[in-house]
């Protein structure tokens, strides 16, 4: 009997060890690194330099705000584009539901970086699309899509759309269609049926989708680098450059913590509004 009680602990032990060593401990390591001073040549000393955080925020507040803005816009685009698709597949997909879902996921079999770079070539100033329109005189010669804010936002929305569609689809698919019929029997028109019956049921899916798109989009730097040029850098670009190019680790670690803190505050206020259990349940199932 004692043996059986131990079983779950034996089962979780390897994964726990891995997650503790390479996820939990490193967060602590990064915290410690963010409170050091020094440089690569002289080494870093643990001085509990809280000033790093003030430096980081003071220097990069613009990128921080831009990340939240772009992430927020991309999330809104994902809702606007993804909700109707999820709705239509769930209610009208019929026998082809899984085929539509597969079609939706198929583009994501191509590597994330390659997909984004492919957009850049596709939309280049004199490429297949813009070049053709310019030749036909439909667009002015100087017109450009690349290296603008909308290019970054649309790139982000493109790359993370399935994370919005799938959770919304999952809740709508489980919904009993008789509820809608019942609302019609009670003289609700299509708009009212949607607002009062379908929308409330689908909200947990939307909330999960928002978490799953807003967090990665606001921290992404691939889209900003590939599609945004030099004037649309996001906080991810700063973190990457500070770590890997400038080797300015204390500032890099501080700015990463600022990003984490902002996202955590967001998630917690979100969870408070919804109930923690529900957020985690939708998110991890």
């Amino acid at each position: 009997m004692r043996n059986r009680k131990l079983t779950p602990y034996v089962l979780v032990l390897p994964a726990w060890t891995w997650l503790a060593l390479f996820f939990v401990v490193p967060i602590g390591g990064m915290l410690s690194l963010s409170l050091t001073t020094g440089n690569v040549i002289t080494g870093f000393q643990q001085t509990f330099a809280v000033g790093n955080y003030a430096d980081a925020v003071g220097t990069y507040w613009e990128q921080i705000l831009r990340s939240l803005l772009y992430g927020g816009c991309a999330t809104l685009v994902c809702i606007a584009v993804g909700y109707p698709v999820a709705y239509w597949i769930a209610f009208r997909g019929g026998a082809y539901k899984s085929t539509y879902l597969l079609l939706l996921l198929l583009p994501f079999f191509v590597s994330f970086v390659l997909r984004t770079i492919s957009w850049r070539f596709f939309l280049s100033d004199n490429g297949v699309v813009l070049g053709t329109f310019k030749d036909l005189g439909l667009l002015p010669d100087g017109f450009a899509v690349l290296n603008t804010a909308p290019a970054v936002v649309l790139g982000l929305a493109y790359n993370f759309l399935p994370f919005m569609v799938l959770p919304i689809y999952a809740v709508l698919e489980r919904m009993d269609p008789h509820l809608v019929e019942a609302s019609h029997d009670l003289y609700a028109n299509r708009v009212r049926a949607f607002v009062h019956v379908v929308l409330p049921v689908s909200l947990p899916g939307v909330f999960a989708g928002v978490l799953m798109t807003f967090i990665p989009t606001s921290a992404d730097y691939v889209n900003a680098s590939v599609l945004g040029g030099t004037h649309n850098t996001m906080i991810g670009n700063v973190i990457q450059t500070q770590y890997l190019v400038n080797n300015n680790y204390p500032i890099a670690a501080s700015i990463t913590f600022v990003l984490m803190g902002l996202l955590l505050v967001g998630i917690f206020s979100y969870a408070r509004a919804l109930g923690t259990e529900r957020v985690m349940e939708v998110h991890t199932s």
Partner: protein
Amino acid sequence: MSAALDTGDRAQAVPARPPGRARRRTDWGRWYTWAVLAWLFAPIAFMVVFSFNDPAGRHNITWQGFTLHWYANAFAYPDLNEAMFNSVTIALLTMVVAGVLGTLLGLALGRFGFRGKQLTNLVMFAAISAPEVVLGAALLSTFLMLNVTTGYWTTVVAHVMFCVSFVAITVRARVITLDPSLEEAARDLGAGPWTTFRLVTLPMLFPAVMAGGLLAFALSIDDYIITTFVSGDVNTFPLWIWGATRVGIPPQVNVMGTLLFAVGLTMAVINVVAARRRA
């Protein structure tokens, strides 16, 4: 759902029509869904078409003429081959290690109540929702402080770390639906815990284990952000493409992208056909 379509259509209903189905207005939802799909496939189509292009200069962005040259010379870049090899082997290692660890974890979460279960769920939730930049930066910070040289194995470690929770969730979802009476029956027939696991539980879990493993493979081979932080001098396919953007991407990248897409497509089609057979 037919009720939603009823309003207003009654006046024009013709008796000769079969009841129910035939009256339909334009299904805007269908058009919309196809438009979104077109958006999703646009860069992929571009990639595939331009893998056959014969570009004039360094930039493969306007159509010049058809050629199979890049397919014939798909493996002309030794660095690219090496990067591809690294990507595949790292993904396979990740699949196996994360597959085993995640399966055990998922089994424990789905089947047993134990102290620390909530905490485990919380850590998994955090590991899944933390942005990749944070995961990569945290690992690199720790490797730096411990003077660990980053490279191939640190990449494997990182990939297993972020894939394990995905496998666990996939397996847990399956464990919850299993009927425990089958295992009880096995025990009644004299099977020990290990035999029961091997002959009864594992075969029933197998589809979920495979799905989780493939998910880990896909996540690993596609990963760019975490990998840049922890891979040191080692190149992977996404990293190589990224580096090549500065000097102009050779059309071979389109070829490899197209081949990978074709493999994915084939697997997906086989999966759908197999599912149809079973149904």
